[in-house]
């Protein structure tokens, strides 16, 4: 089915970006913000219309033009909506719209709000291209496009070198991942003969794929996964995300929490049938997801910057999602994407509100006792915190529980490992929450903190609501058994046999009792840890109370396990050394050195020859005699065999 409305989902933010960035360039934050927000919401409503009109029974496509086509590479600029996409669309445009609204106020004191909203709209356009594109090159276009916008937005306050460095780190790290994407594209061109996602899926299920052997498919999937570790901040490429917090907080909320970082999960999901067949790869994904979840959570335990805590929390949650993929539970992963988008956006915006109220102070230790100064923020932040730790009946509870349940089915070991990460989540989230909102104000800023503008609090409220409500699309059987979400998402793979991924289609069910036990164990553990954490951090009165004598582990964690430094020593410095000295030696010393040597020796020999030119007539004639005599003697004596 075709629909020209589809393109407008992308065009609205693009138009918004053009208006803001090129034409109007208004310094009035409300005008710029209005344009940006309207564009986002226009997309949202278009998505809604498409969503409501069509459901997900058929794929909706929209062909715009042929981008490039030669030989057997044919790339159209075409859009396509499947079930996964439409959910993602709503998340992106909906949460995006809310964050835009929030940002109008948040950025109201900025010098060039038009630039901010232009970037933000551009990001939306790219992100929407990513999810909508019919073929992988289009996905890649969006993939790199969001990378660019992320780069621009992280370095939005470009006057400070730190920010632009963080932006560059994000871009370059993502590029390392993108190489995998490109390899996957090349494999698709070479072996599958097409770049169209549906055609690839059809090809993979067809008879040619079997003839092709599994290596191509493995490399393809591995390439996509490698790209995802970059974009979705998994080990080993997660290092950029915490630094990305240098950007304005709405950016962190939109890009680095809710949408862009989940695009890795999204793309894997769209190509799930290929992943499904790669058992070894899934193992790898599981291991990586688990380790990321743990590592990030461990680091988050000791971070003092509220945004850093949330950033590592994001990495950790993304690890959960990948672990879910690794288990073979894509729907669970995607459900967590959606719920996470809601509550993490909420948390970030809340943090932004706090920072706003604290006059750009981000250190948790400098806050304290904000619950009275910023009640709305506090309330919504609490909802977000509860959601992320899996407080019963919040969205996080449902999505996390779904993953844990699948993990338990797969292997209890995986379950316990994931549970451990979840418990850590509970600990550090409550730590952050308590440090910020409980106890006594520890600095002047904290004492003078104020509640934010309604443009900021309203989105917070809506997001808080969403953080609770969204979970009810997928409720375990023991609590009533709603499987709306699974049904929707499964529609994406209609025509693909065997039917997979859904939570209901598992081979063996857990008994209800086991499920109950699991839920209680998980929730109880989380709440218990959360309580401990609250007890520990909720009453801190002075900064010094926390700062004193960090232990070995604390120091390790505070320093992020020295991962950046290790990367520097292992990769960056050797590469830079090779590049610098290599290019110097080869270009400067060898090639140019040889050339200059030739030039100098030519000049030198010219000057030496000139010395023979004494100016005396006898010298001149001597050479005549010499040449004649030599030639004659050589001719004669060689003719006689003497020479």
């Amino acid at each position: 089915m075709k629909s020209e409305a589809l393109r407008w989902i992308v065009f609205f933010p693009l138009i918004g970006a053009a208006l803001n960035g090129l034409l109007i360039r208004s310094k009035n934050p409300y005008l710029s913000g209005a344009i940006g927000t309207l564009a986002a919401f226009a997309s949202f409503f278009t998505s809604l219309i498409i969503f409501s009109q069509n459901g997900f029974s058929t794929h909706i496509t929209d062909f715009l033009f042929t981008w490039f086509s030669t030989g057997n590479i044919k790339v159209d600029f075409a859009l396509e909506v499947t079930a996964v996409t439409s959910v993602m669309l709503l998340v992106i445009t909906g949460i995006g719209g809310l964050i835009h609204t929030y940002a109008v106020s948040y950025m109201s004191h900025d010098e060039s709000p038009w630039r901010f909203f232009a970037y933000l709209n551009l990001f939306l356009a790219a992100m929407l291209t990513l999810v909508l594109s019919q073929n992988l090159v289009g996905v890649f276009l969006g993939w790199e496009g969001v990378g660019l916008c992320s780069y621009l937005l992280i370095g939005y306050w470009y006057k400070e070198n730190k920010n632009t460095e963080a932006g560059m780190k994000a871009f370059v790290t993502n590029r390392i991942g993108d190489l995998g994407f490109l390899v996957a594209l090349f494999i698709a061109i070479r072996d599958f003969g097409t770049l169209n996602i549906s055609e690839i899926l059809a090809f993979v299920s067809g008879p040619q794929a079997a003839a092709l052997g599994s290596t191509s498919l493995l490399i393809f999937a591995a390439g996509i996964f490698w790209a995802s570790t970059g974009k979705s901040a998994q080990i080993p490429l997660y290092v950029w995300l915490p630094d990305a917090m240098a950007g304005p907080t709405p950016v962190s909320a939109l890009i680095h929490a809710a949408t862009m970082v989940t695009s890795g999960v999204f793309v894997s999901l769209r190509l799930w049938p290929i992943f499904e067949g790669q058992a070894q790869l899934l193992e790898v994904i599981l291991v990586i997801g688990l380790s990321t979840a743990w590592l990030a959570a461990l680091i988050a335990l000791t971070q003092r910057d509220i945004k850093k805590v949330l950033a590592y929390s994001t990495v950790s949650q993304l690890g959960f999602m990948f672990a879910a993929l690794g288990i073979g539970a894509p729907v669970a992963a995607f459900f967590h994407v959606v719920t996470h988008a809601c509550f993490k956006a909420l948390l970030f915006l809340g943090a932004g509100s706090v920072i706003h109220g604290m006059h750009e102070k981000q250190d948790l230790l400098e806050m304290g006792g904000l619950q009275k100064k910023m009640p709305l923020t506090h309330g919504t932040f609490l909802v977000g915190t509860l959601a992320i730790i899996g407080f019963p009946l919040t969205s996080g509870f449902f999505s996390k529980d779904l993953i844990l349940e699948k993990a338990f089915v797969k292997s209890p070991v995986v379950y316990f490992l994931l549970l451990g990460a979840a418990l850590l989540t509970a600990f550090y989230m409550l730590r952050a929450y308590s440090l910020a909102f409980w106890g006594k104000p520890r600095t002047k800023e904290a004492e003078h903190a104020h509640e934010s503008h309604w443009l900021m609090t309203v989105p917070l409220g809506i997001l808080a609501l969403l953080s609770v409500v969204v979970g009810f699309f997928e409720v375990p059987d023991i609590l009533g058994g709603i499987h709306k979400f699974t049904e929707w998402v499964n529609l994406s793979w209609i025509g693909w046999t065997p039917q997979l991924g859904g939570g209901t289609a598992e081979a063996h069910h857990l008994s209800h009792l086991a499920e109950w036990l699991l839920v209680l164990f998980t929730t109880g553990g989380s709440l218990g840890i959360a309580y401990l954490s609250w007890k520990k951090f909720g009453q801190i009165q002075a900064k010094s109370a926390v700062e004193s004598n960090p232990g070995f582990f604390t120091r390790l964690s505070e320093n992020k396990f020295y991962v950046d430094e290790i990367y520097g020593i292992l990769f960056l410095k050797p590469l830079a050394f090779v590049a610098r000295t290599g290019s110097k030696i080869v270009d400067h010393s060898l090639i140019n050195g040889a050339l200059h040597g030739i030039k100098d020796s030519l000049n030198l020999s010219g000057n030496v020859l000139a010395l023979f030119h004494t100016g005396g007539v006898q010298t001149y004639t001597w050479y005549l005699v010499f040449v004649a005599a030599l030639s004659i003697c050589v001719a004669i004596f060689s003719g006689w065999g003497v020479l």
Partner: protein
Amino acid sequence: MENSLLLFLLWPFVTGLLLFLFPKKIPLLAQYSSLVFQIVWVLLFVWAIGPIWEELSVAGDGGGPRAFPVYFSWDWIPFLKSRFSLGLDGLNIPLLGLNVLLSLCLGFFSLNKKNLGPGYLGLFSILNGASVGSLLAADAFVFYCFWEFMLIPMYLLIGGWGSKNRVYASLKFFAFTMAGSLFMLAAILALAFQFDVASLGWHDLVATNFEFQGWGSVQGLLFLGFMLAFVVKIPVWPFHTWLPDAHTEAPTGASVILAGVLLKLGVYGIARWCLPLFPEASAAAAPTLMALGCVGIVMGAFAAWFQTDIKKMIAYSSVSHLGFMVLGLFALGVEALQGAFFQNIAHGLSTGALFLIFGIIYERTHSREISKYGGFAQEHAWLATSFILASMASIGLPGLPGFVGEFLILAGSFKTFPVYSLVALSGVLLGAIYMLGMLRRFAYGPVSELVKSHPVRVTWNEWASLVPLLLFMIYLGFGSQAILSKVEPAATQVLTYFR
């Protein structure tokens, strides 16, 4: 057709000589006249290619490939077996268009510049003529004549209007390029007088079969002769060291044309002459040349990474990017070949724009040291934005033309030589590293003393020179098919010689 093509070729020569006669005291007169000449030239270009524009995307007779059509021929020196013949097809038309576009932009750029008098403009025009001539030539001897002649105006432009170290750079440029092309001269000579070819015309040469049994054999030697000229011009590693110097010292206009047209001629030359004439040798040399291309990609990027001189960095980025084109040429597949030709245009636009923008800035600040810049985005947002846009195009961001070229090259070469393609991929990453590193230090961060003390007011004509490039860049990012469809029949035709 004949007349318009000939007129198109002669126009820059005639106007160039005419410009020499303009009074030196009133540069404005020469500048505006030159601009008018350029505009007329653009019209001539449209007039010349108009009649065949539609046919270009159509395959040749019987659905077969489209051989190089010759539209003008004059028996000028029969006893040298040379006819003055000019042809047009999908391979050269895009490059001609790029040349015309860039020179029009530079026509605008040169306005109101006190030091760019009639001499500069005249040489410039003649340079255009020479490069267009070698693009159009359908005869090896004619090709060589134009090819070599190009050196003179370029040498004088770099040497006469360049910056401090210009003498060294111009000499190096001249000596390097000439050393390479003399081998081509020898090969052309051998073609003409050692073999029973009817003439040095492209069609006659292509119809001749040269025996290939290793590099000492006829075809091997001829191929090497031609290749040496082209690899120096492109330049392929390790023949590249002239380029950074030439680019760095050249005046803005010369840098733009050097990057936008001259280097491309090497790529064009290979596709036009080396591949169809010496298919076996080309196929045998392909792995080596692709390896050199890869080394160029990596080493160019490495060198660009740690440059302290912005123009030098851009130049080294060109070395890296041209490595991609070599890779594309010798992957010997239509995708990669198309990619190489598209990358020609893309790189011409993006690097041209980079040089142009930096030229505008350099004119005010007179410094190329990256470390002296900083926070330029605050000084002039539009210009900085343009610079960032061009950089992004240069590192192959999707949505800008560089991506399409690189993608096609890499995907195409992946089909035949996956290993090289994977090595070349590192160039994509390194490109981001050095470009963004430069951008970060140049455009972002606190405003430096230099930038503060040299305010940049961009004049209307500078915008007029820049905006078309940027617009084309943005257009080609998605409108790639407009060019690719024209190149395809010709590219396919080149590959028909590889059985």
